């Protein structure tokens, strides 16, 4: 139980350290204010500014007329000032979207015309990348509008010329108009686009937590320099107890800070962290375990505060940059995004974005397990390092 007293002592010291307390409490609040003033304006601009022309990727599996009308007449001609249409194979489009080479794409199913004409359900698959909510919304609205106008258009067309549908006989069946003629789906039917504000609230949040970990670890190293660590080792305290106490103290501080950031951005700026409260809570805990584990690992290796200050500063900046806290993750190639999942902040940010997009706990379970697993792995390495250090050459 000595680790509990060690953690309590660390919390007491942090509470009395004005500089650390400011970093913990005031800086996140300041961050929220900066986000509010900077990104808040950006969000307003997002709503008001004229839309830049963008490319819509199209996979047309349908041989009927209506898909041609939608793509050629509606998107290519009527919306030519806003949209440029390019045609792809399905795999090619998926890859383009995945690589963020395209922001929006649609896949028109082979029964598109027939289903519309017969009043049955059909699907246009809408693919989009996060943070391009406006482009996706435009495409979605155009398709919805098109589907609603089909009954009229179809009748007019039928009267003017035969429509090739595969069901030449029937124009409309009974019940037409009672059912929706068209269902759009995005990549995931439950996925919601993530706004800039949401993205940076999460990105800055994870970056600040890294800074808090650095702050906590520097006190751990200071203990080594001031002989307090040696004195602790001369008591009945064991290495596992020592490291557990350090990690627990760090985790409590980090949890407090993340709580302030999440609640602060939610209440003050209405940032939507997703509908899964349990997902946010569990992922936050997992992230804190991961980051704290990495922290105590660093603390077990580094002996002087001077060398840690350099390593801590560079390490935090590099991790923040790679983890997506400075520039959005989608500008990185896929393999970089994958690798950043091994960074506590990278994995946490990607999972927070998933939660904001509507993911449930079950979907983020691998991320939770990975995060906690990495944290425990870091802890174990730190423990081995401390034990080895004593047996070896400590002077």
């Amino acid at each position, binding site marked *: 139980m000595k680790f509990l007293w060690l953690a309590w*002592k660390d919390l007491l010291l942090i509470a009395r350290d004005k500089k650390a307390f400011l970093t913990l409490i005031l800086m996140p609040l300041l961050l929220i204010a900066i986000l509010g003033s900077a990104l808040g304006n950006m969000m307003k601009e997002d709503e008001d500014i004229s839309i830049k022309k963008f490319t819509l990727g199209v996979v047309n599996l349908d041989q009927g007329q209506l898909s041609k009308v939608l793509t050629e007449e509606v998107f290519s001609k009527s919306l030519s000032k806003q949209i440029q249409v390019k045609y792809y194979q399905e795999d090619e489009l998926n890859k383009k979207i995945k690589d963020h080479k395209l922001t929006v794409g649609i896949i028109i199913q082979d029964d598109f015309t027939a289903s519309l004409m017969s009043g049955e359900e059909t699907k246009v698959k809408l693919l989009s990348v996060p943070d391009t909510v406006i482009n996706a919304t435009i495409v979605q609205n155009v398709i919805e509008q098109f589907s609603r106008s089909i009954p009229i258009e179809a009748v007019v067309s039928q009267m003017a010329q035969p429509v090739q549908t595969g069901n030449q006989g029937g124009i409309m069946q009974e019940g037409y108009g009672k059912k929706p003629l068209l269902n759009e789906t995005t990549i995931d039917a439950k996925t919601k686009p993530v706004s800039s504000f949401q993205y940076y609230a999460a990105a800055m949040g994870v970056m600040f937590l890294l800074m808090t970990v650095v702050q906590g670890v520097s006190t751990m190293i200071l203990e080594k320099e001031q002989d307090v660590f*040696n004195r602790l080792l*001369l*008591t009945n305290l064991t290495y596992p107890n020592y490291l557990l106490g350090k990690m627990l103290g760090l985790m409590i501080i980090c949890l407090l800070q993340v709580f302030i950031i999440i609640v602060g951005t939610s209440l003050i700026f209405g940032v939507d962290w997703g509908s899964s409260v349990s997902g946010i809570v569990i992922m936050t805990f997992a992230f804190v375990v991961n980051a704290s584990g990495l922290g105590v690992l660093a603390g077990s290796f580094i002996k002087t505060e001077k060398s840690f200050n350099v390593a801590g500063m560079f390490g935090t900046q590099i991790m923040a940059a790679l983890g997506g806290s400075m520039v959005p993750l989608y500008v990185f190639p896929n393999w970089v995004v994958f690798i950043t999942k091994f960074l506590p902040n990278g994995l946490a940010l990607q999972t927070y974005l998933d939660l904001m997009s509507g993911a449930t706990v079950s979907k983020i379970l691998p991320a939770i397990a990975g995060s906690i697993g990495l944290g425990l792995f870091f802890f174990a390495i730190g423990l081995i390092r401390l034990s080895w250090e004593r047996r070896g050459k400590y002077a």
Partner: protein
Amino acid sequence: MNMLTVQDLRKIFGKFEAVKGVSFAVEKGESYGLLGPNGAGKSTTINMITGLFPPTSGEIHIKDIDVVKNQKQAQKWIGVVPQEIALYQSMSARENLKFWGRMYDLSGSALEKSVDQVLEIIGLSERAKDKVETFSGGMKRRVNIGAAILHKPELLIMDEPTVGIDPQSRNHILETVKRLNNEGMTIIYTSHYMEEVEYLCERIGIVDHGELIASGTLSELRETIGDHSKIILAMDKERFNPEQITESLTTFFSDKDFQIQDQQVMVFHKEPQLILTDFIQSVTKTGAKITSVDIVEPNLESVFLHLTGRNLRD
């Protein structure tokens, strides 16, 4: 019964041999001093005894417990006062003591009682609620000692506990150590202040360059230099001529019996009052002007000088 037994203790860091086969034993209730200049190997020896790091070779037993093999078991019997102030500065004296008490498995009323007793012993009951960072160096040193005796150890190991403090605090600490020893606590006291070791310790080990070069009671150590006192004449710089003084002194004394250092001339003799007049006349006839005369009884400083050819604080 031995409280501590150290046998052929060695510690090598890379190519540097910090401790070279040190052996000594301390009996229960005894106060043992380790005297030596800075860098002599005292702290390294202490760190191995406390189990902070393992020896390269050799054996350490506290009571019958092998410190190398059963470090945590042995540490229950010892309290360690480190050379540095190893306390949390933004916590009060009481908070510090309570924290360290908990690290020694104390809790509840036993912890409260022990903290109160220790605060009384170190004379800080009235400042118990003040943060350590507001204390003077001497007061911090007292809390540093307090944190080591909360669990009532049988062996108290103190590594230079009076470095850099005022005389009043130093006296208080020395009295505290004396009191603890009188109450039955075994003490190992390292210092490069010979007067502290002389005052506190029944037996003394002199350490230099990683070796224990002498060990015994104060009188036993004095005997190694033949119980000679030292007469020191301090000179005025302007008319000080070492060659002429050497020539003059050799008419009365052998080369071994006198030393000239800086503007001081020293003569060693069992009965200094018998040679004082001749000594002064020999020096003054060279034209030198004497500014002070001092007669020093044989002490650890002269023992160390005799054994190593250097002063303790060189």
